[in-house]
């Protein structure tokens, strides 16, 4: 065991320790920054979910925010004074995920025979229809005014009231979702999705039912979107159709592309960049969106493959830790 191994070990340890320290320090930040971090975590969950469809299965879904809306409105209807139903947060979380998955299957079943751009457009239309329907179903959703005064979330008796509480909840959920998706990516299912992305005809030729595969990807990602929506609803304690526009769907797609398609580390990087950028640009006042757009185009033109190279993924980090720390003799 040479000195270099020890140095590299220490270096790696330092990086990991830094990450942990940063994550632990977040709750001590002023409330505004904690809210920004919460928002980043929500978008990481959404983007990791959408990445199943866009990054792994290679299907462009431009209406993803509809599932998020389904989850958020599930919480708004089942845990507020709207119909005086007050279900506990954790129950609604599962209901929201299930509702998202059902919506995903309902949409996916007829449209997944379509390919490429057609699929993209149909999902886009679906997202718009859901938003317009929410906007107009006044008796159920209060229309454009939205539903206010949602219940304070409560996790097994622990009230979730401040952004810091949500930070811990979101952190745990983000880790669970990322780990789940990572293992799914490495499973036989993930391999089938990747094959589907590269060449659907060969996959079909191998006797795999491509529609079922796509449907599975759709349902899983929609379930993650639905769960994200429930958390969003309980966090904001207010939902309105304004939050679920086409632009939101595009933001989630942008996070995936800016970070690096099909790469969880990339998605995290993309979410951090795209959520923090508008906050940093607050000083620019009315020029904010203009600068945001210019930065966006510049980043895409300069790094079309995404900010994070596909080699630098979660598997790479885990391997690094394993070889350096657990069995350094192999390096």
């Amino acid at each position, binding site marked *: 065991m040479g000195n270099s191994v020890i140095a590299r070990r220490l270096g790696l340890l330092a990086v990991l320790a830094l990450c942990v320290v940063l994550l632990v320090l977040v709750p001590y930040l002023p409330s505004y920054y904690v809210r920004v971090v919460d928002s980043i975590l929500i978008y990481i969950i959404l983007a990791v979910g959408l990445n199943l469809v866009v990054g792994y299965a290679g299907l462009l879904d431009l209406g993803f925010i509809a599932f998020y809306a389904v989850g958020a409105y599930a919480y708004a209807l089942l845990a507020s004074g709207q119909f005086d139903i007050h279900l506990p947060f954790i129950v609604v979380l599962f209901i929201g995920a299930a509702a998202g998955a059902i919506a995903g299957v309902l949409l996916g079943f007829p*449209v997944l025979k*379509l390919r490429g751009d057609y699929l993209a457009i149909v999902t886009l239309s679906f997202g718009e229809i859901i938003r317009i329907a929410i906007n107009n179903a006044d008796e159920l959703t209060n229309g454009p005014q939205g539903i206010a005064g949602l219940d304070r979330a409560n996790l097994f008796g622990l009230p979730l009231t401040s952004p810091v509480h949500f930070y811990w909840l979101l952190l745990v959920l983000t880790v669970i979702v990322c780990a789940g998706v990572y293992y799914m990516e490495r499973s036989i299912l993930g391999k089938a999705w990747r094959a589907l992305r590269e060449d659907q005809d060969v996959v079909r030729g191998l006797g795999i039912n491509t529609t079922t595969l796509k449907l599975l990807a759709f349902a899983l990602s929609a379930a993650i979107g639905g769960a994200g929506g429930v958390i969003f609803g309980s966090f904001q304690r207010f939902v309105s159709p304004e939050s679920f526009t086409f632009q939101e769907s595009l933001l989630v797609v942008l996070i995936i592309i800016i970070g690096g398609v099909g790469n969880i580390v990339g998605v995290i990087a993309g979410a951090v960049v795209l959520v923090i950028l508008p906050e940093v640009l607050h000083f620019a006042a009315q*020029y904010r969106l203009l600068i945001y757009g210019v930065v966006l185009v510049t980043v*895409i033109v300069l790094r079309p493959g995404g900010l994070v190279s596909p080699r630098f993924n979660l598997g790479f980090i885990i391997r690094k830790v394993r070889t350096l720390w657990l069995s350094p003799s192999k390096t």
Partner: protein
Amino acid sequence: MFDYFLQQLIFALAIGAIYGLIALGYTMVYGVMRLINFAHGEFFMLGPYIYTFLFSGLVGLGGLAPVLDSAIAIVASFVIVGLLGVAIERFAYRPLRAYGRLAPMLSALGMSIVLQSAVRVTVGPQPVHFPAIVPSTPIDALGGMVTTVQLGILAAGVLLMVGLTLFVNGTRLGIWIRAASESWTTSSLLGIRVNRAVSLVFFIGPGLGAMAGIMYASYYGIMQPTMGSVIGLKAFTAAILGGIGSIPGAMLGGFLLGAIEVFGTAFLPILSFGYIGTEYRDVFAFAVLILVLLFKPAGLLGETVSEETTVAKKDY
């Protein structure tokens, strides 16, 4: 009942012509580049703003006859928006050609944000009055009331569409465009400068979009920086409806979408006894689109070639 129908028909045709002109831009760009140009709605929005700027500039400089001022401003806004389209293609889309199809699409999205916020920063987010090109006088046609503006929009729209058809089918430059959308590699092997065809498409498409914007603004007498978003999305569905990549398809799709929307919203409350109201107007476009794609994925006038040749084996 008949006069009501006639009135709605003229309205449908006028709005359909506008959708059709925007859809042409989407379909031509898609034809040569297989790119959904999300920035296209912004060219539609830029049209009336640039027109107003030029027109008031001309009038401020003393100007000629008002008709001549408008005509010059209209032609100039076509050219300016067209050149802007060419420049955007050159700097934001061309460098990304080798990187699949997601990157250019998102670059287009970024451009859309840039253009929209640039206009918002310069003239403010509030809706602005659009100076009338043709005075709006109602005409009594077979019992129905039709305005000169509606007829003007319809005439201008049809004129532009006929002009484009003649251009694409009858000139050398038109052959470039058709060849490039047929097959990129084969046409470059045959000595066609594909990049020039692309630039040409990015000149004509945004130019037509700007014309549609001027028509739309003169119909409603108002313009605002966000006007391109929803209209752009709907015009895109019109392009899909007619068969994306097909030029006559885009025109047909535009008129059909206009008709579906206008008659759908006009008669649905009557048919459903007031249960489904006009607020579902925007749902029509998208619902029809989904149905068409499910039963006739190539669109109405799209070529019915096999799946494998229309779409690459990789989706995205």
